[in-house]
């Protein structure tokens, strides 16, 4: 009997403590030995849309939420909108499980196109410094913002989210095929900070914090 599962590109070595099936995806909510952070959290299952239009600000329903300048991001009700370039933006539904994509040509569902991981840590800059030459702590940008460049030599979209409490989060999106290699390399590179696989709940709870 074949199960109609959807598979994440990322598989962690840890054992799940809690998990749930969501829209075909097996989502790990918590790992047995995930500790208290820093965490590497697989968010590859969250719905992702690509939006392209010559006039992005006019795009049906979403135009107003798209930042004016490339590199800009907005987060509203758990939905992250990042402007990639003058004609392209991406929308990641970090909290909403099954959003309805507008039937407008500008939108393309790219949920499966990339592996999306979050590094949630107190000292997120120190970890990221080891894996990317990009300057996430640049004073010229205020979180949330998007950078596009290499992480472990792989072209990625990197979003730095604002600090909440003691923790900050960086979202790293790379081509899906690189997902497993990137995960293994990230865990190894950040071993000195005891970076461990974390379940989705810890990220959702952090994101919902005021």
């Amino acid at each position: 009997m074949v199960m109609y599962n959807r598979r994440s590109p990322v598989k962690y070595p840890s054992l799940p403590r809690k998990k749930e099936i969501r829209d075909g995806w097996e989502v790990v909510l918590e790992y047995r030995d995930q500790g208290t952070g820093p965490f590497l959290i697989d968010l590859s299952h969250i719905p992702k849309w690509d939006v392209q239009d010559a006039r992005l600000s006019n795009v049906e329903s979403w135009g107003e939420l798209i930042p004016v300048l490339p590199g800009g991001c907005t987060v509203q009700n758990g939905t992250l909108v990042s402007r990639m370039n003058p004609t392209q933006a991406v929308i990641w539904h970090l909290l909403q499980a099954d959003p309805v994509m507008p039937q407008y040509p500008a939108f393309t569902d790219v949920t499966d196109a990339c592996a999306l991981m979050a590094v949630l840590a107190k000292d997120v800059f120190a970890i990221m410094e080891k894996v990317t030459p990009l300057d996430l702590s640049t004073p010229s940008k205020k979180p949330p913002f998007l950078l596009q460049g290499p992480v472990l030599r792989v072209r990625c979209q990197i979003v730095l989210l604002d600090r909440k409490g003691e923790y900050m989060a960086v979202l790293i999106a790379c081509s899906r095929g690189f997902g497993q290699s990137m995960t293994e390399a990230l865990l190894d590179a950040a071993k000195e900070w005891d970076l461990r696989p974390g379940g989705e709940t810890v990220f959702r709870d952090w994101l919902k914090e005021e």
Partner: protein
Amino acid sequence: MQIGCAHRLIRTYGVFPGECVVFSIGHDLGLEAALDLFDLGVHVKCVADSRTESQDPRLLEALSERKIPILPGWMALKAHGKTLKKVTLGTTDGTRFTDFNCDTLVASTGLIPANDLLSLLQTKMTYRRDMGFFLPEALPPKVFAGGGVLGLQHPQAIEVSGHSAGLEAAAACGIPLTGLIHEARERLQDLRGLPGGSKLVRAPEGEGKSFICFDTDTTVENIHQACDMGFDRVELAKRVTAAGTGPGQGGIPGHNLPLVLSEYLESSRPEPPTTVRPPLRPTLLATYAGSHYDIVKKTPIHEAQEKSGGIFRRVGVWKRARYFSRDFSSRDEIENVRNNVGIIDVSTLGKFRIFGPDALNALQRVYVGDMARIPEGKIKYSVMCNEDGCLIDDGVVVKRGENDYYFTTSTGRASATIEWIRYHTRYERWDFHVVNLTDDFGALNLAGPNARAVLERLAEGDLSQENFPFGGYREFVLGKTVPVRVMRLGFVGELSYEIHMPASFMETVWNLLFDAGGAFRIRPFGLEAQNALRLEKGHIIIGQESEIRATLHDLGLGLLWSRNKPEAKTVGAPALRFTEHQKGRMKLVGFEMENPARPPKDGAIVVDDAIRGYVFTARYSFTLEKSIGFALVEEQLAELGTRLAIFEDNMGEDRLYAEVVPTPFYDPEGQRLKM
């Protein structure tokens, strides 16, 4: 040992460097170290200081208070014993000598200013004879320096100079700080400035060699010889003797070479040191030995293929299953596709959506075919050429809606496709958008005479040849759940379906197909089997049977070029017009070996009295029971029936022989595709 070593032993590890220690130093830090070790209980027998002046008087006084003999203008000349028994000290002019019994010699000739950074900025350096250092004459515009780069060693002087440099940098950015800068400069003047350095650049004349570069074993004598040969400038002497070209990055010879030369040439003004180049600090071996991650791309069914016995090879950035058994001829996999049904992972193909009012214009620009003629429910195979008319990519295009297309590219070109389209439309104000869906979709090729029977078990609707013919395109749902895009293609020369599905569902689809194909004994096949199958069918692989000398016409694919769309300004079209009937071009040919059991190696050369071409790919065909291949040969050898002589490594006078034959080798009528 050096002073740092002696310090580390006693301060970090609590170990005395020795019972009775002689110091031979050339800077104030050496004097401080002697005092420190003495205060920690080490017997310091004496301190030889190669300087005759400019010692910190407070340190001299402290040594005197502790009754430690200090010998200005002296240095260690010789260490005696396998384990040290005594050292010979002598004056730097080599006129006086004396021995001291001891079990440890702590030696350090001195420090030079760490001004390599300034040197990198093309700062002009001058030798300060009073100090014994090379120091900047003046700093370049907008450069402000402090601390060790100026040769300062006293902590307070370092701090104040850094503060002053920071203020000056801020002032240069337009912040009014004149008062503060003046104050900081005054404070700096009150502090102890540059310590005098050791002017010793070589040991006194004696029996032993005097080295100027320990990396390359260059001696002072070598420098003198270079001078005598006419290489009497710093840069010349460096190149002749290799002094300073080792891993030490010219640390010691950088400073001493000009001084040795100047002394030998009796010049009063030493030349500046040789050019400094990065890295200023050698890369640590630990850096090279550190983790090097092998970042590869894996397809969504990598694990599932591993479970099925896949043997993987790296292909570009991807890991792909090349074989599914240890029989690397892949005979069973090939025969299973020809006679039954096989399945291969082709997820690495580039996949794109292009949409917008000018999407068709963009496609017309980069594809040689007429993309305005894509019938509904059909695919269009086409190729892209570069500006020289050479084949760079192929794939299929389908029209999914008004101004909305889905197209595939070869694996190797996937990452360059968007840039290629953008580049060749950069002067047009066209409104179109491209989404890279390469990783968004997995793709499987289900191929073989039983392919339809397998797919019918999962798909609703009529998949017959009449309803879904060769060249057709359909979108439907597999197993009532998974949305798929399916193309009737024929790369391996059999009835086949290329199935594209959301990547996250790919493992499910793989399992579904194996479940449905169980009754037919479906099995996976790898890249090697695919290579042999498509070769039999006469299909080329971009990069494997294409190269920079071969245009579309040379490869026999000229029919794909639509010459009736000049308004599209198709990339490569002018070159195709120019070369279409050009004489003397190399041609792609198919060949059969005279000895059917012996294919030549890929890359073997076609020869007569010179090299006339080479073999792209050749394999023994289990289906045809003969060895076949593709070669690129000079035009005069491209005629059907021509006998080709093929040479391989270490063949001597022997040759392999083949005959040029028509292609496809297998199913030339294409009946198998239209089943």
